[in-house]
Each structure stands twice: as structure tokens, then as C-alpha cells.
């Protein structure tokens, strides 16, 4: 029982990382209707910018805010400059453009800041909580993820802009007819996803350490979480992210013989089994297509 509780808590702490990432994945999915393979690298780049600002002597929170603003602007620019020209291209070609962006960001970060592992500060400290089941930073990470979720929920459900963004992603032609500026909604979606990615990156970096490849694993888990929860549901993505973290830890601990070595595979296989029964994810709405 003690072990179970401990593993669940450790899983939740990991899960908070994945949930952060899954949330930004779903955000951009809502805005542009595609999975962004470069999401993790964008978050990594934002985190490096914050790290550079801190290294130059900027206070933590100022660097935090500056990185979010810069990421937002960069996200908008990426959409306007890189993805506008391929908007009409087939989906698979757009996917390859994401892969290209991934490669460019990863390689440039390595060139600018090199591949040595750097520590990233946390304002929350690492004081143990709840009988050393989690520490303060992990608790803060869970808290910030949930806070972001609430803010996003309020934004998408409660504001005109949020409604316009949802309309632009769901049905661009009709949205344009009722006066929504679809192109700018998409750009805004990119900006927001980049900003959320920046928050996620800065929360994750103290745990996994800062280096150009830090996000690859996290992004994959984030995708798994987002898909498990359902790509149409931000809350589902967060729950999915936590679930992936807990599943992975429990599979590693409690499934004898194969557990530790194959825990990632086992977690993914469990997700695929869940998808067999819920093909649109746990909380996703199934899309009814018109014939």
C-alpha cells in the first residue's frame, strides 16, 4: 500500500510534466487542426531564452515573463512566415514542414548553447512535502498546469475571441463568412501554444535539466497523453498526461519480470487498448463526418 501510494505520487509528478506538454499540444491542435511535431523544440528554445536572460542577470520572474512574450511573438511569426505558404499543401507535406522546424530548432539550439547539460532554477525550491512523496516544485508544477487549464477553459468557453478561435479551427469557411479573421486566429493559436509551451518548458527544465534534446521524450509522452485524453478536450489532455505518468510508473513497479525494461512499451500498449474501446480518446467528442 505504502509502495502503491509512493509510486502513484511519483507517477503524478512525472505526469504533471506530460500534462503540461499535452495541454500545449491540444491547444495548437484546437487552433490549427494538426499535431505540431515541433512543439517540444519550441518549448525547449523558449526555455533556453529564459536561461540566457537569467544568466545575464535578469530576475527569474522577469525572465519568465519575457520568455513567454517572446515565445508568443515567435509563434505568431512562425505561422505567418513558415506555415502560411504551405497552408494549401497536403496534410502530409505540412507534417514534413513540422519535422523541418523540429530539426532547425534542435540544431540551432545545439549550436548556440551547445549540448552540455545545464541546470535551470526553480522559484519553488525542492522542499519535501507530504512525507517526502512530492517536493514543492513538483506540487507547483501540478498547480500551474491546473491553473493554465482553468484559464484556457475560461478563455475558450467564455470569451468571444475563444469562440472565434474554435470556429476558425472547426470550420474555416463558415467562420470566415460570419466575419472571423481565420488567418489571424490560426496565428493567435500558434502564439498561445508557443507561450504555453514556454511555461511548460520552464517548469520541466528544473526536473529533466536543460539541453537541446530534453523535450523529445517529454513530447512523445505528451502526445500519448493528449491522444489518450482526446484531442478535442484540454481537460482530457491534462488527465491523459497524468494517466500516462501513473501508468508508466505502476507498470514498471507491479508487472513482474518485464516491468522495468519495457515500461514505456507497456504504457503505450495500455493506451492503444483504451483507444480500441474509445477511438476518440477518453474525453474526446467523436466527430460525425458528413457523407
Amino acid at each position: 500500500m505504502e509502495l502503491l501510494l509512493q509510486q502513484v505520487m511519483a507517477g503524478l509528478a512525472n505526469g504533471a510534466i506530460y500534462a503540461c506538454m499535452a495541454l500545449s499540444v491540444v491547444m495548437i491542435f484546437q487552433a490549427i487542426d494538426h499535431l505540431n511535431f515541433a512543439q517540444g523544440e519550441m518549448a525547449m528554445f523558449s526555455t533556453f531564452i529564459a536561461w540566457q536572460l537569467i544568466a545575464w542577470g535578469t530576475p527569474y520572474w522577469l525572465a519568465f515573463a519575457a520568455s513567454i512574450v517572446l515565445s508568443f511573438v515567435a509563434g505568431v511569426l512562425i505561422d505567418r512566415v513558415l506555415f502560411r505558404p504551405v497552408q494549401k499543401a497536403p496534410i502530409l507535406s505540412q507534417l514534413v514542414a513540422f519535422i523541418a522546424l523540429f530539426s532547425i530548432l534542435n540544431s540551432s539550439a545545439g549550436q548556440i548553447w551547445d549540448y552540455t547539460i545545464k541546470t535551470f532554477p526553480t522559484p519553488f525550491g525542492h522542499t519535501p512535502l507530504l512525507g517526502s512523496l512530492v517536493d514543492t516544485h513538483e506540487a507547483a508544477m501540478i498547480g500551474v498546469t491546473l491553473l493554465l487549464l482553468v484559464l484556457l477553459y475560461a478563455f475558450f468557453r467564455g470569451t468571444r475571441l475563444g469562440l472565434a478561435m474554435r470556429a476558425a479551427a472547426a470550420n474555416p469557411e463558415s467562420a470566415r463568412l460570419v466575419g472571423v479573421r481565420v488567418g489571424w486566429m490560426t496565428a493567435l493559436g500558434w502564439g498561445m501554444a508557443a507561450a504555453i509551451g514556454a511555461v511548460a518548458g520552464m517548469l520541466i527544465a528544473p526536473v529533466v535539466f536543460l539541453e537541446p534534446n530534453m523535450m523529445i521524450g517529454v513530447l512523445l509522452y505528451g502526445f500519448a497523453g493528449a491522444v489518450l485524453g482526446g484531442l478535442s478536450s484540454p481537460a482530457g489532455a491534462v488527465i491523459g498526461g497524468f494517466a500516462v505518468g501513473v501508468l508508466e510508473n505502476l507498470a514498471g513497479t507491479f508487472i513482474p519480470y518485464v516491468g522495468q525494461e519495457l515500461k514505456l512499451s507497456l504504457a503505450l500498449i495500455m493506451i492503444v487498448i483504451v483507444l480500441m474501446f474509445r477511438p476518440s480518446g477518453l474525453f474526446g467528442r467523436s466527430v460525425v463526418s458528413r457523407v
Partner: protein
Amino acid sequence: MTTTIPKDDVAVAPAVPAERAVRVRLGPRHLIIAGFVVAAFVVPLLSSSFVTFQLTEVLIYGLAILGLNLLTGFNGQFSLGHSAFYGIGAYTAAILIHNYEVSYLWTLPAAGALCFVIGFLFGLPALRLQNLYLALATFALATAMPQILKFHALEGWTGGVQGLVVDQPEAPGFVPISDDQWLYYFTLIVMLVMFLCAEFLIHSRTGRAIMAIRDNPIAAAAMGINNSLYKTLTFGVSALYTGVAGALGALAIGFVAPDSFTIFLSISLLVGLVIGGVGSIPGCLFGGLFVLYVPNIANALSTGLAGAIYGVILLLVIFVMPAGAAGFVRIVVARISRWRQTSPEES
């Protein structure tokens, strides 16, 4: 699309053989393909053994991309899991040669058959999933594969993290060519046979059913196509192609290790598919060329920024040819024929 002529209208049937005759007539397309085939046979006689080895790899990637293309381009099912099938094919060849001393000729059918069965079985759960959800399921397969290959209980077979060394095929005594050239010609012939089979498959009744499912699954089902059967079979055939490519890859490199078959291989194949042209059979070879040479070119330009240069090249190619090389060629050909039609009137 298949014709929907009722049986009473058999009187119209003579139209069909006429169409056949048109298709068999040699056009410029056939001449160009024949030219490429001749060039493919001559090049290794003139090039260094390293270039021959690289070209062998191009053919192998082309074959693997063709496998992915059959599934994604012609049947509309998305896969990030083809690195797993490539890995299974490679390991089948390696284990048969290393542990059981089977002749390399027999490893290809074995790898193909095993991958067909695994692909078919994987196609069953895939029936329930669409688009991104299918991408995740196949992604799970790609992530699991290196871990399974490293798994300690299978080390006796797979060699664990160390991998396996594979005895490479040697040129038989009666032909005066080097081992590299022999391997190249062997790969070339396997590739040509499999490309022809794919061409025939796509232009058959089965092929039209496969494409109908991609274009409109509901309409396809309404015309009496068994969607589940064709989708799972396509998954199997696709895995077969990629598996045979994997076995050839093991023979060419002479070594297999779990970390050669990660998700990044799947992504490379996907890039090759898109650059070559989704739904184009000759395009796969162009994809193979891109996958092998462009990273090398990027690396030669700048070691530190190789990834960035690769990304920029990739973006430029997508900007210039959004529908891949095959789509680009199609546009150019259409332009030329339009220009030919209009120019005599002007003169």
C-alpha cells in the same frame, strides 16, 4: 474507379480491350523508366565501391518507402510504425543467418512472410482507429520495437544491446564482379520485381478497391468492397515490403542493433514518402535518394548546423513541390503538353 456497368450492358464491353491496348502502347514514360533501369545497371560498373554501397542503400530505402506508400498513399492509413517492420525484417535476416546459418536468399521470403503476418495482425486493431489515433498506435509499435529487441529474455536470439553481426553475401565465383556490386545487383533485381508487383497490384481490381477505400470508405463499402479485409491486407502487404527492405538492409550493412530501428527511422521514411510523392510508385526512389543524400550534404556544409540546414532544405523542397517530386513532374508534364498543343496554332 471500377466501372459500375450492369451485366446487361455487356455489349459495351469492347471499350475495355481498346483501353487496355492504349495502356500497353509504349509512351515516353516507359522510355524514361527503361532509361533509368539501364542506367541503374550500368552505374555500379563505373562508380567506386562506396558509391555503389550508397546506391544500394538508396534502393533499400526506396523499397521501404514503397511499403509505407502502399499503406499511406494508396490506402490512406497513416503509420509511424514502419521502423518496427523494417527492424523485424532486418532481425529476421540477421537471426536466420547468424544463429541458423540459413542462406541469405531465404531470409527475404522469411522476413516478408513474418512481416506480412505481423502487419496483418496489427491492421486488425488499427481498423478501429483513424488519423492521429492510428498515428499514436503505430507510434507505440515504433517505440516498443527497440525496447523489445533489447529485452533480456530475448538476448539469446537478438544479441541484446550489442546487436548481431551478419555474414554478408559474396559474389558467386562465375561472375567477375565485386561483393559490393553483387549486393547492389541483387538488391536492384529484388527491388525491380517488387516495384513491378506493386504497379500491377495498384492497377488491378484489388488496387482500385484499395484506393476507393482511401477516397471514400463509405462509398467503397456501398459498392461491395470489404473495407476491413482490404485495409488489413494492405497493412500486411505494406509491412511485407518494408520488412523485405529491412532484410536487405541487414545484408547490406552486415550488422543489426536495436537503436537503428527507432521512431526516427519511421520519420525518415515519412519524409522520403512526402518528398518522393504520396501515391506515386517511382517517386519512392526519389524519396530514397533524398533520405540518404540530403543529411550527408547538410553534414558536409556544416557539421554543427547540419540539422538546421537539413530542415531548411526540407522546407524549401516543400515550398517548391508541395505534392512531392511526383506531383512536380506531373505539373511540368502538363505544362509541356499544353505548350505543345498551343504552339502550332500560334505559328
